[in-house]
């Protein structure tokens, strides 16, 4: 019952600014959980805490019931992968190489076997290449495998970033504003893709999603957590959250033109 990622009473301060205040949430296997809130509500800080870029001042994290002290370079080994706002792709590598880099923690061959051209290093590289191809195929972008990311439309680059994160075979995927900069059609495709992630045949993963795009969040999430000024103001299934007065006030209120100081 403790399965999945849990945040317990997380607090983060930057100088005098409270970025997160007593935030608790849980992502269980098979779930898609959304985090929404106005700009500056602490959504990205929340991700940075999970990734280990920011150390919380109070509270703790657990993964499958065990205490978690995240460090960025160990994240994939724990089964957690993250996409970045924008795409953060390696401009100098091809699409396929970008995705291979995402899975490279699984390649255990050191430099010496590689230098000597031992079969193990060869097998490693081929396995990595095949796996990367499979993921590109699954996301429908295999045709772009040899392209440089910079030459591709944004929607495709966004999928490459997603493929790179999935290549690490995560059990939990953190998506940071995946719909940012996408058109309506692309958002619909993305929604379908995200809904399918917990039910993938190979390597199913739970999703924690930070997103501005309300339609996407409402469409894909099993549960939604609403942040405002670093605090959880509401949490629950999409229908309940949509009706919650605190949410309408904090988040949706801003969209009908009330100026927020």
């Amino acid at each position, binding site marked *: 019952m403790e399965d999945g990622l849990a945040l317990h009473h997380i607090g983060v301060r930057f100088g005098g600014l409270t970025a997160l205040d007593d935030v608790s949430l849980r992502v269980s296997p098979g779930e898609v959980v959304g985090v929404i809130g106005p700009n500056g509500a602490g959504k990205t800080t929340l991700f940075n805490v999970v*990734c280990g870029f920011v150390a919380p001042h109070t509270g703790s994290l657990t993964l499958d019931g065990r205490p978690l002290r995240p460090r960025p370079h160990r994240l994939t080994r724990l089964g957690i992968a993250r996409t*970045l706002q924008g795409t953060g792709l390696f401009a100098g*590598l091809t699409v396929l*190489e970008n995705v*291979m880099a995402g899975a*490279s923690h699984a390649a255990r061959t050191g430099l010496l076997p590689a230098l000597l051209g031992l079969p193990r290093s060869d097998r490693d*590289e081929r396995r990595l290449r095949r796996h990367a191809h499979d993921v590109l195929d699954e996301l429908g972008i295999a045709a772009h495998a040899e392209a440089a990311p910079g030459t591709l439309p944004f929607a495709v680059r966004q999928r490459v970033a997603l493929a790179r994160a999935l290549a690490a075979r995560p059990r939990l995927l953190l998506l940071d504003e995946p719909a940012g900069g996408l058109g309506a059609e692309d958002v619909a495709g993305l929604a379908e893709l995200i809904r399918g992630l917990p039910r993938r045949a190979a390597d199913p993963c739970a999703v924690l999603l930070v997103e501005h795009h309300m339609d996407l969040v409402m469409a894909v999430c099993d549960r939604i957590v609403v942040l405002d000024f670093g605090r959880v103001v509401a949490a629950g299934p999409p229908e309940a959250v949509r009706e919650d007065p605190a949410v309408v006030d904090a988040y949706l209120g801003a969209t009908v033109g009330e100026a927020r100081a």
Partner: protein
Amino acid sequence: MDRFLFLTLDGLSRGAVYAAFALALVLIWRAGRIVNFAQGAMAVAAAYVAYSVTAATGSYWLGFVAALVAGLLLGAVVDVAVMRLVDHRSPLNPVIVALGLVLLIHAVLGMVYGNEYLPAQTPFSRTALTVGGLAVLSPYDLFVFATVGVVGAALVWIFTRTAIGLRMRAAAFAPEVSRLLGVNVSGMLTLGWALASGVGALAGMLVIPTELGLHPHAMDLVFVSAFTAAVVGGLDSPPGAVVGGLGVGLLLSYVSGYAGGDLIPLAVLALLLAVLLLRPGGLFAPVTARRV
């Protein structure tokens, strides 16, 4: 005409070594945005290790392997024990530290081995073979070409066809993102230093016997030539380093053949100055938009 052919082949052989040495500089530049001014001194140190091993065992090849291993280790040690501790926010800091390293290595080598020229062996004859009455390449020149070719191919293989090479490239392009993907970024940087320093040591082993012999300053002029080659090629471009190296080798061969060997240092510096003035990005630099 014979003379021209001889100078061309000699220049290419010398250029192959410059190319290898320039590659070492490019490797570190790409991995960590540092121009390793200590590369020459590090290569000399590795060559002295070879000298000691060869003197003790009587085998050139044991010494050769020892130099490569010493080069790899020295590169890793310089990164872990020195460069990692340097504040990289100002690009000048690692440069100054590298120059300090040059002084340190020269001083230590002078203390241990003395500041005289020691004879350096070659595994093959340096007497040019004659083909149809024309003096062309020596067996040693062929050895140089083969070795540099193998090293170049091995580097291409590592960086494009192995998982660890991919990690090294990823770490160089975007360290923060790579860390998120589980790449040990500082480990990759150390590996880059080791590889580069190993290649530098190899180039030193190849070039020192063709000059005056082993001396703490034996690589000084080679370093300047190879640095020029790397700048001609654009510092960021491995193919550029190879082309630059061969070009500088040819130029220096013609200069010393037609105008006199004393002019070599002058010619190198003139070329370096010209490239920096006219095309500071190097001949292989992509055209970039100018901000107005």
